């Protein structure tokens, strides 16, 4: 689940019901600062696991949905590094760059490989789906 998309949809729903409903009010309702929410929604700021859990709970998501949102963020974090100029096919490097624990990086890699969203062609060459 893409929590960012879910947040945008929820904000849109509330603004449709009340045209004066602001991003600031939405952020307050979610227990976060409006500048943080703005960065998440408009500038693609990464959602930390703690933030994902907190926002997911405030939105009333189920445990499974929150787990899906966490996985989505981890997948995106790892995939975003594959085309990086200094990319290294090394889980410790991925862990350092994403801030994820090493085991979580490897769980993410396994998920991406199983889902055919990442391919490891050679020891050094990895590609994302569609590239």
């Amino acid at each position, binding site marked *: 689940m893409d929590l960012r998309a879910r947040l945008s949809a929820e904000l849109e729903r509330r603004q449709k019901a009340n045209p004066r409903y602001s991003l600031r009010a939405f952020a307050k309702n979610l227990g976060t600062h409006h500048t943080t929410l703005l960065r998440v929604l408009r500038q693609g700021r990464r959602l930390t696991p703690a933030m994902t859990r907190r926002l997911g709970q405030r939105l009333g998501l189920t445990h499974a949905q929150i*787990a899906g949102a966490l996985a989505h963020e981890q997948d995106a974090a790892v995939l975003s590094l594959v085309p990086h100029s200094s990319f290294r*096919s*090394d*889980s*410790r490097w991925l*862990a350092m760059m994403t801030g994820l624990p*090493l*085991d*979580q*990086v*490897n*769980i993410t*890699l*396994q*998920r991406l*490989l*199983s889902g*055919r969203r990442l*391919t*490891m*062609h*050679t*020891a*050094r060459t990895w590609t994302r789906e569609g590239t």
Partner: protein
Amino acid sequence: MEATVIRWQLISPEPEAAASFYQRLFGWAVTQDNHLGYREVKSSGVHGIDGGIWPAPAGQPGFVQLFVEVPNLDACLASAVRLGAKVIVPPTVLPDGDAMAILLDPTGVSLGVCTLAPRPA
């Protein structure tokens, strides 16, 4: 087809705790000196084979998987699919040069198949 079981792999929801347990129980050495930080376990002694420990996703139970070395990964996968297996991780070249894939056999048991990169003498 020549096919040899060369490695066991424990998929554990608590890989660090599992490594610690087997180190203490059997005196197996566990190292992570590789690009994936994979926990390689020296368990072979005279007759056995070595293994490894890989993390399981949250909420998934642990299990043991066997890795079988084959001469040709693609040919093995084609045969496996013909015999009713399902490829759950397609052919993947690991950072150390070994290539592997994960299958679900027709009875639902997963196993790894691999070809190994040449090792320095």
